């Protein structure tokens, strides 16, 4: 595969002079104050049947600070028009806002170039874009490597691609404590000269495991594979730097990082993006269209057919600025503290089994677990989450879009509590107390 953009994809649009958002960051980090942060999230003031809402489902979708909602509102109320094709004042304002959001995101993730940021509708679309565009280079017998801990959105696009091309889908297994089993992979020659694509999660949405992406990227590159990363759970909680990560393509989504729904990001190395064919076709992604054929815009617009999520990009830009103002390192530290506290609490309850790492090493802020009553009968996660919901606690129950991983651990489903910058120790206390109640409730009735 040629990674060189070549003359067929000349850079015709230059947005490098568009400045990122205007928010000036303080020289010294602001002290992390969870109560002050909570005041930015009006939804956290809601109550459920008289008790305060305790939202422990941020790995599913995070809540939004007022500043993000207001940025979207301001865009619609004062600057709304289509981008890149409306030749008037509002069109120019909307285009600048949209491209400014791209610059903001590029800065947030440490991209070399603003044009490396492609806006999609979500992480799933970004991963489908990868599978579709990389697929043209595959031959029957080539191998695609994923892992058993992937979210369905990083499994199914590759299954479809394998079916289309005759490529073979293989995967990393996990160890009993929920880490990628790199030793087993090495022993069985998982990565080899047939490997053309490696696609793994940065942070597991079920286990919370933080995978050694730079190491995996180096392994992938050593056999000539393109390395794709699903960073949906990583970008919200870790300071991610694309220039250092070592991956070729990285997908994430806006709504898990206090941004709006309806927008995701695909970051790609510019030379790789420039070599990839279009994905969806339509307006905006073209250069010249004739009835005989068309030429395509350079990245990122080549991959943004149709009217893009403009207001959502504005909201996502505000989200990135909000997280930056607090400081990603402080957010990581807070999540780590809360996760450690939750693991401690969960392990104090008889009948709780945590899936994934029990210790804080390389571990993000999602904890999945199973529950058994005193008589050793399992309590189904759907029953657990319903009882918790009645006490105002929102968790997720089921396989969390990772059915193969649950099968690997021999459980049908699990309950997941996930945390974010607004989660408090008191909320973890309430979770543990309610789980204790749940165990007793189902134990007593049996």
């Amino acid at each position, binding site marked *: 595969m040629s990674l060189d953009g070549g003359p067929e994809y000349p850079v015709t649009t230059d947005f490098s002079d568009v400045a990122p958002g205007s928010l000036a960051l303080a020289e010294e980090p602001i002290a992390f104050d969870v109560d002050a942060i909570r005041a930015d999230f009006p939804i956290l003031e809601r109550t459920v049947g008289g008790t305060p809402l305790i939202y422990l489902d941020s790995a599913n979708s995070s809540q939004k600070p007022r500043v993000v909602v207001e940025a979207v509102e301001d865009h619609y109320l004062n600057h709304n028009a289509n981008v890149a094709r409306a030749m008037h004042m509002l069109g120019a304002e909307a285009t600048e806002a949209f491209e400014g959001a791209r610059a903001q995101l590029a800065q947030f993730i440490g991209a070399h170039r603003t044009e490396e940021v492609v806006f999609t509708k979500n992480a799933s679309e970004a991963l489908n874009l990868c599978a579709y565009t990389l697929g043209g280079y595959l031959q029957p017998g080539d191998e695609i490597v994923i892992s058993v801990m992937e979210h369905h959105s990083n499994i199914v696009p590759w299954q479809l691609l394998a079916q289309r091309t005759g490529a073979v889908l293989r995967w990393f297994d996990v160890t009993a404590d929920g880490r990628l089993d790199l030793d087993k992979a090495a022993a069985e020659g998982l990565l080899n000269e047939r490997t053309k694509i490696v696609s793994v999660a940065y942070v597991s949405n079920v286990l919370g495991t933080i995978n050694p992406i730079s190491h995996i990227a180096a392994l992938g590159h050593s056999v000539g594979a393109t390395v794709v990363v699903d960073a949906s759970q990583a970008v919200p909680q870790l300071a991610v730097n694309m220039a250092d990560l070592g991956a070729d393509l990285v997908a994430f989504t806006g709504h898990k990082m206090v941004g709006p729904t309806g927008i995701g990001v695909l970051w790609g190395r510019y030379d790789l993006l420039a070599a990839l064919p279009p994905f969806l076709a339509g307006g905006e992604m073209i250069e010249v269209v004739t009835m005989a054929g068309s030429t395509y815009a350079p990245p990122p617009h080549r991959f943004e057919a149709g009217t893009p999520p403009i207001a959502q990009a504005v909201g996502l830009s505000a989200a990135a600025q909000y997280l930056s103002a607090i400081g990603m390192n402080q957010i990581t530290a807070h999540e780590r503290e809360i996760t450690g506290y939750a693991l401690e609490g969960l392990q104090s309850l008889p009948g709780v089994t945590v899936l994934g790492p029990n210790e804080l090493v390389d571990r993000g802020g999602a904890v999945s677990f199973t529950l058994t009553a005193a008589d050793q*009968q399992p309590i*189904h*996660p*759907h*029953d657990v989450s*319903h*009882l918790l*919901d*009645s006490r105002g606690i929102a968790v997720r*129950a*089921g*396989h969390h879009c990772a*059915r193969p991983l*649950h099968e690997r651990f021999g459980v*049908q*489903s699990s309950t997941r509590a996930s945390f974010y910058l607004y989660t408090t120790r008191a909320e973890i206390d309430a979770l543990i107390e309610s789980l204790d109640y749940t165990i007793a*409730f*189902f134990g007593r*009735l*049996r």
Partner: protein
Amino acid sequence: MKVEELYQEIILDHYRSKHHSGLREPYQAEVQHVNPTCGDEVRLRVHLAGDTVSDVSYESVGCSISQASTSVMADLVIGHDVAHGLGLYEEFLTMMQGKGQIEPNEERLEDGIAFAGVAKFPARVKCALIGWSAFRDAIIQAQSAIS
């Protein structure tokens, strides 16, 4: 309604020991139904002898509501007319879609009336219906297999 009231003793009894559980021969149709949101799965077989449902056997995993509901369904339909079973399916469905406003017929639904409260919790309605839907689907397939 408090959620604790949802978990009536009848439901937990059926959950504890599911009636007619396990896959059996013979059968004319086998179906698999899943609830992708929570991962509940049921594989269900139906055997008809003329117009009579002579057996319903199943293997299932899922929450207490889905497991108990499937167990109650099997109790209610085995040994009865196909028309009776499908009629009960319709009645159960109506109760589940009634948002808790429909007074169930205890004579006909027996233990099934314990699920009346489920209708007040939209997120759980699908749980209560999974076994019943599988039963109806299997009946239709068994009938077309025979004819």
